[in-house]
Each structure stands twice: as C-alpha cells, then as structure tokens.
C-alpha cells in the first residue's frame, strides 16, 4: 500500500521551487558570463599589448646588428647606432645602483628595526609612500634646481645617476622593509640572545636572510630606472652624442678613473625618444630597434627578479 500525500500547501510549494531553481540557473548563467567576461577583458588587454610589442619587435628586430650596437648616432638613419646610448645607460645604472641600494637598504632597516613607533616614524612612512608617487619629471626638476645649477655639477653621468637613485629609493626601501619583516622573530631573538648588538644582528643575520627580497626590489627598481626618460631630459642630457665617456678602467696606475662621472652622456630611452620624434620613417625603425633593446633589458631584469622571488617562496615552503 502506498500513500501519496495531498500536500496542504498545494502547488504553491512547487512554484516556489521552480522560482528558486530559475534564480539559481540565472545566477549560474551570470557567473559564467562574469568569468568569461573577465577572461575576455584580460584577453583584450593582453592581445592589445602583445600586438603592440609584436609590432615593435617586427619593425625593430631586423635593424639590430653588430653595427647598430657599435655605431654612434648619425644624421643618416641607416648608419646610426646606439653605442653611446647603451654605454651611457650602463654607466648611469652603475651610479644609481651604488647609491640607491645601500641607502635604500639602510633606510628600510632603520624604519623596520630601529625606529620607535611615533610621529617621526609615521612621518617618514607617509613620506616614503608619497615619494613613490611623485611623478618622475618632478625628480628631474629637483635635479635641475639642486644638482645641475644649485651644486653646479652640470649635466653629467653622476647627476643622472643620483637623480634616478632618488627616484627608485622608495622601491628599494619598501622591498627591504618587506623582506626584513618576513624574518621570524625567533631568529632575531636567538641572535640577540647570543649577546649580539643591534648592528651585529642586522649585519650577520637580518641582511643575509633578507638578501633575496632586497635583491628583487633592487632589480625591479633598476629596471624602472633604465627605462626612465623624463627626468633625464629635464636634466638636459644631450640627444646627440658621438663620443664615449672616458673609460672607468685604465691601463695605467691607478687603473681606476672617475672622469666618466663628469662626462656628458645620453641613454637608451633618450635616444629612442629622439628617433621617435623624427619625421623620417627610417629613424622610426631605429627607434623600434632601440625599443626592442630597452624592452629586452627591462623585461629580462624583471624576469630575474620574479625568478628570485619564486625560488625564495619555494625555499621558504620547505
């Protein structure tokens, strides 16, 4: 014997069920639309960028050869090269790295490990965050007013290096702080417990442990500096340089030469800007080729940074 219930609520319950199922189906559809939409938007943005980059590579890659890398700029597009530009970029980066990394790491250490919570630490913190957002061209104006004319240093490799060092300082500071913050407290206490003073703890324990994180930040900062154009233009870097700065290493005693610091210079992005601004299409090819070199530099630097961080994360899991 089986009994089928009549159901005092009648069809009302069934209807509600149907409505609920419909709502769920609708929500599911919207979910699919949303996730597909997200993918599509991502795909549009990525395709656009890849197209642009692809276009740059197609136009520029064929132009890059030995002559292009070893020639000075020229009035004739097909004879022009980027020798003075990449040498200039290299020297400027050297100055930037030597200044920004030690100072940025020191500042990051101070803020994370030394500074007492208080108005001063707060002020410096807000300040670093703000400096990270100051447009790069403003750093250029600072350099003009302070280094070029204020200190009478001229439009030199040294000034460009110092300016870019100030520009990337916040990046180095922030990454140092994050790396230092990630070190377990028990490791620090262990080091202090041995009788190490604060500097010994920093030098022997904190800095070695934070090194990968600091390195990542420094590389990201340098990759940003290498592509910076605006502040260097503001300083007044020349766009047409057909000579190299004096070599930093000489054959004679004392083997090291600092004259290059005071030499006029140009850098890769300036060279590219210069060629983009020309009306002739041949120079645009040169610009594309320079762009390819620049992109290769910045992207490979960033790739290294991402790789270090990836290894760091894998290491810390074990």
């Amino acid at each position, binding site marked *: 014997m089986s009994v089928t219930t009549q159901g005092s609520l009648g069809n009302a319950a069934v209807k509600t069920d149907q409505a609920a199922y419909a709502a769920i189906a609708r929500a599911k559809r919207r979910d699919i639309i949303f996730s597909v939409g997200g993918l599509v938007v991502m795909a549009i943005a990525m395709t656009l960028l890849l197209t642009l980059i692809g276009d740059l590579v197609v136009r520029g890659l064929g132009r890059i050869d030995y002559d292009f890398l070893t020639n000075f700029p020229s009035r004739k597009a097909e004879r022009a090269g980027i020798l003075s530009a990449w040498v200039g970029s290299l020297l400027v980066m050297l100055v930037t790295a030597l200044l920004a990394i030690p100072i940025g790491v020191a500042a990051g250490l101070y803020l994370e490990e030394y500074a007492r919570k208080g108005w001063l630490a707060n002020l410096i913190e807000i300040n670093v965050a703000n400096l990270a957002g100051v447009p790069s061209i403003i750093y250029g104006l600072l350099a003009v007013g302070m280094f070029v004319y204020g200190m009478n240093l001229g439009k030199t490799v040294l000034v460009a290096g110092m300016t870019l060092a100030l520009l990337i300082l916040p990046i180095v500071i922030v990454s140092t702080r994050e790396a230092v913050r990630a070190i377990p407290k028990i490791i620090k206490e262990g080091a202090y417990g041995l009788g190490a003073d604060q500097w010994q703890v920093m030098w022997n324990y904190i800095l070695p442990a934070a090194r990968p994180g600091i390195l990542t930040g420094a590389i990201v900062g340098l990759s940003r500096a290498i592509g*910076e154009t605006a502040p260097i233009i503001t300083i007044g870097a020349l766009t047409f340089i057909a000579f190299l700065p004096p070599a930093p290493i000489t054959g004679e005693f004392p083997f090291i030469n600092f004259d290059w610091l005071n030499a006029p210079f140009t850098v890769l992005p300036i060279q590219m800007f210069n060629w983009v601004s020309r009306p002739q299409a041949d120079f645009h090819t040169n610009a594309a080729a320079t762009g390819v070199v620049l992109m290769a530099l910045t992207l490979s630097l960033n790739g290294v940074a991402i790789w270090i961080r990836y290894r760091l994360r894998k290491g810390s899991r074990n």
Partner: protein
Amino acid sequence: MTNSAIPTGSELIKSGFVKRRRMIAGIMRVFLFLSAALSIFVTTAIVYILLRDSWPFFMQIPLTDFLFGTMWTPVFADPQFGVLPLLLATLQTAGLAMLIAIPFGLTMAIYLSEYAKPAVREVIKPALEMLEAVPTVVYGYFALLVMTPFLQQFVPGLKGINLLVPGIILGIMILPYVVSVSEDAMRAVPNGLREGAYALGMAKWQVAVKVVIPGAFSGITAAFILGMSRAVGETMVLAIAAGQNPNLTWDPREGAATITAYIVQMSLGDVAHGSLAYQTIFAVGLLLFLITLFFNVVGFYLRRKFREVY
C-alpha cells in the same frame, strides 16, 4: 672544560671590545637614521626647489592670471601665462585613461581575486608586473606610430597628434598597477565574509558585487586614485603623442600639450637658467606636484584605512 681563549663578558668589557663594538653600532645607527631621514630631505628639497625657482614667476604674474588664464604662450613676444590649456589637456588625458582603467581594471581584479584558479593567477600576476616595467618611451612609440595611424581609419578627424590615443595608452599603462593594488585589496577581504555570503546561497558574482567590492571599496578607490596620480604625472607618452602645442580644447581628437609635455619641450630647448621661461617650468611643476600630492595623500589614507579595517 671552559676554554680560556674565549673571553668572558667582563673580560670583553675590560679589553675595550664592548666599547669598540658599541661605537660601531652607534655609528651605523646614525648612518641608518640619516638614510631614512634622506627621504624627508628629498621631499623638503622638492618643495623648496619648486618654490624657490618659481617664486620670481609668481612675483611677476598674478596667481589668478596663471590659474584662470586661457592662453599659454610664455615664449611669444606678447607672453601669456594662463595654465588652463595645459591643465585641461592633462586632466583630459588622465580622465580618458581612467575611462579605460576603471572598467577593465575592476573586471580583471575581480576575475583574478574571485574567479581565477591559483595556477592562472601565478602566471598573470608576474606578467602584469612585467608590463609595469615597460619603459614609458616605448608606450609613447606605440601611441604615436602604431595606435594613432590605426585609429585614424575609424575615428574621423583624428589628428596625427591627439589626446585620445595617449589617453587610451595611459589607461593601458596604469592598468597593471591598478589591477594589482585593487586585487590585493579584494583578496584582503576576509574569507569569513565570503563564506557567510555563500552560506546564504549567493552565487559567485553576487558575492563579488555584494560582498567583496563593498568590503574592499576604500582599497579599490585608493588603487584608482593612485592610478589617476600616475596618469597625471606621466610624461613621455604625452610628450610624444599629444604634442607640444598648448591648445585649450575639449576635443580629444586634437593635440594639446600637457603640463609634463611642456616641461619636456622647454627642457629640450636651450632655456637660460634664471630666465622667466626657466621659471615657468618650475611654476607648472609646482602645480603638477600639488595635484599628484593631493591624489597620493588621499590614496595613502584610503589604503591605510582599508588596512586598519582588516
């Protein structure tokens, strides 16, 4: 058992080792402090230099002429110093950039934080970071030589130098930054809130729209404000593709110099140190600094407020 070659604490004091070490630690402490204080010095120096070198300009040109004048012809025989054309071009391109960055950025951030599988995120996040590293002069090349000729086929009256294309490119440029900051904000929304919403039977998109976005609202707003600040301060794309001709226009198909483009233009020419033309660079630089400072401070506090909530 104990090794006499190892000095005890009191021996270390007597031998002067402790004193020497204390001195080194003290010197390093000072060095570290000076390095940290350098950031304050840099800010102060920026403000000081901008004020010092624009002061003579503001002594000669009334502030109202500067802020509300509609002509910017500083090197003409009859110079006019109304900053409005530069300001309008700056805000127009930044606004166009936001029109691109807000919808695209928000969708991408929601996708990354709520929908994407961890493996997908692991690939896309570094890719976005790599894009942040593309030099701006390369974006300028894209705008002038690739995008503008392409869009001229579809947009009637689009000039070779215009505001529209740099605006779009700026939007793409700040996208990685905006996405990564707002995605961080969304991911910081505690999972408990999400679980509560799912327990009520909400679908994923409802959770995203009704829980995650409101929960991360100040963080997301901060991302866009900081993105806006970057767009306003960006230089090379505009100097290359928006032209260097001050032009008071509401038509994005026309070219017009922005504040940054003007600074580049003057720096490229031979501007005599101390001349009025030199001072104009610092006057508009000061204005630019104040605008970005405003955005940065608002963005900073929104972000901090957001972090305090979670």
